[in-house]
């Protein structure tokens, strides 16, 4: 029972930290979050794509699914699965920051000039 309360405390503190991070990023307005884009792509593909590909139970989601403002709002709310659970349950907070960076940097209205080759 004591273990559970400790766990609850840890979870609520972590959630508070994540929300503080997300709120501070929201306050930065249109600037990009300071996570690691490359790692965000890796975590997104490794964790999110399992359910969020075409035909899978979560439906296809890519960075282009939302605009930058919509992604910011999504991460500010911090809810996953139609609001049934918090994002922190899906992924560690540092990974969330990286995924958020990746999704915002490549959102439907982001600046994505094409290049020659890769």
């Amino acid at each position: 029972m004591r273990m559970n309360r400790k766990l609850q405390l840890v979870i609520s503190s972590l959630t508070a930290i994540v929300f503080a991070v997300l709120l501070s990023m929201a306050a930065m307005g249109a600037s990009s979050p300071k996570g690691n884009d490359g790692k965000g792509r890796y975590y997104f593909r490794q964790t999110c794509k399992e359910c969020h590909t075409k035909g899978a139970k979560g439906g296809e989601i890519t960075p282009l699914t939302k605009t930058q403002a919509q992604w910011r709002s999504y991460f500010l709310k911090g809810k996953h699965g139609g609001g049934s659970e918090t994002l922190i349950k899906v992924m560690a907070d540092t990974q969330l920051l990286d995924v958020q960076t990746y999704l915002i940097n490549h959102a439907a209205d982001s600046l994505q000039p094409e290049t020659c080759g890769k």
Partner: protein
Amino acid sequence: MDRRRFLKTTSGTAGAGAIASSLSCSLRKRGTVSRGGRREVPTTCELCPNKCSVVAVVEDGVIRKLNPNPENPKSRGMLCARGNAGFLQAYDPNRLKRPLIRAGARGEGKWREVSWDEAFDYTAQKLTAIKEKYGPQGVLWSSTEAFAEIFFKNLGLAFGSPNIVRHPTLCLSSVNLAYSTTFGTVPSFDLLNANYVIMAGANRFEALITPDTMDLIDSTMNRKTRLICLDPRFTVTASKADQWFPIKPGTDMAFILAMLHVVIAEGRHDKEFVVNYCTGFEQLTEHVKPYTPEWAEKETEIPARDIGRIAREFSDAAPRAVFYAGRRSSWYQNDFQMRRAQAILNAIVGNWDRQGGMVPNAKIALGEYMFLPWDDPKAPRVDEMDKNFPLAAQGDGAYLKLRENVLAGSPYPVKGWMIAKQDPLNALPEQAKTLRMIEQMDFIAAIDIQMSDSAWYADVLFPESTYLERWDPIEVMSGIWPVVVLRQPVIKPLHDTKPCLEIVQGLAKRLGLQQYFDFTIEQWNEAAAKELPIEMPLEYLKKHGVFTPPGGPKYGATLNPEHRFVTKSGKIELYSERLQENGHDPLPVYHSRPEPPYGKFRLVIGRKAFYTHANSTSNPWLFDFAPENRLWINPASARSAGVADGDQVEVASSVGAVQLRAKVTQEIRPDCVFMLHGFGKRSPWLKRAYNRGGSDAALLETAWDKVSGNAAMHETFVKVRKV
């Protein structure tokens, strides 16, 4: 003479195409064929960015010839002169055959053959020393597009350097940025089905013979597509066009703005398309009012009545009408805005995603070998992309600005240079500055198949296996009809060479970065192929060399008013708020270019389809087509300079001088002179090309497009005198 010989070769290629048609049937049935000592192996060409599919005929371990692989609709059963001659790379007696470490002064040409271990150890030690003294940002990693480029680039990033500089700012970055800004993507031009094509400065019948060149030839010859050519030279493309206008150099944008004026003033735009898919039409309408054909005539020296007529013909032919973006580099410091004007003109006549118009490239999803990436570099880029070119592709860098900052040691020193499949001494304008950049480096290593001019000045050389001796990552060639291609070895490496991945792994191991490259090319390709909708995809690719999804080209997928373009507004942006927010003109504003002063000429440059940039001039078959470049000069200009046809002349700009022979010809305007790119080689190992003709890189001054950072290659004035 050149043209005749080239046509002879391409006819040969067409013959080879017919042979290959029957060959492809056998391939479809049996894949890689082995009969006695004879094998036929499908793989992918590397002689240019088009990456056509080929079938190598190998007898007793020796490549006898390369045939086109008609299974690839992108290469359409064609292999150009370069593609045919490509196998001579493997048998070049002067190629790089084993690792070398410099034994004398830089550029002295004294080398010591070493083992791979010694080359890796020595390089890792030098890179580590620079990292300890200057930080990881003290090493520059530069490369040009290639299937395996990703491994080299990733090594630089894993090393911790933000300074990865790729080729696009010497290539198409102004085009890519202008079309990305307008449409959120860079489309293909459906030349096969277009009825009206305008080419400005693009010389597709002569400078780059790829399958879409053949489309255009087919269209103009058989379907009577109208081709309008604007070029200060009477090029081969001009000779095949319905009309050629020797436009005054640097005024293309004036021509386009006047076309926009006519199309809008006469209500010839596609009104429904503009309403449904575009933003900023009202601002555009106001903006182009002053740009009348009469105004443009004074700038371009093209009669106003012709500009008006072409605007009407173009809009009448739409949507099967394109103002072709071309596959050429930037010429002027306003190149991005000129490309924007093109993109806007194409947009308002409604040729987007329509047959014969501009079509967004279709892609095929590949799988991915997953590994956890590295931490982000801590230092900013040395070229300060975020400040200087915030809208451009940040990861590509801006080569000329980067060179300026490296030479100035600002904002920090860069003292190491790793180079892969690139020859900066010939690719960058102002060769003397590139030489100064080389001089100030503590260490330089190059990965190449040949002793390029830049390799000649390196400290360590890693010999790469040629494209016919190695595996490379599977690639998607996106386009109107995308395909997946595989490059596999046709023969075993003839010398002590390695593919790029193994060179990168050898260095990574010694730099403590092996965890990022702990895979084989087989594992990489298996992961990439596994998502293809075919059984045993990798085996299929090994057998066929190419996977083509069924169904052919598709048009109109984005023609749905609900479709969101990848732009700030979600629409096609005629007026760009993003440009305005970043201090650039939101609509293209014309500024006249300076005229050449008395006694000087504008230097214009170009290419021949025999050569890829500056790197195949020593290929024996290709060299025979054009063993040297000449300076094209108009007879009136030649008279005033005292020059006769065939004379050796000195061409001098503010940054250098070269000598070459003059070609006195009516086929160029009197205010400019022309020379082919890629000659005047410094490396004696390039036996044929060494010291032949003059180097344009030695003459061109440093200038770049203000938005993209793309090198501006036609901003240089030169003097010409007989020697």
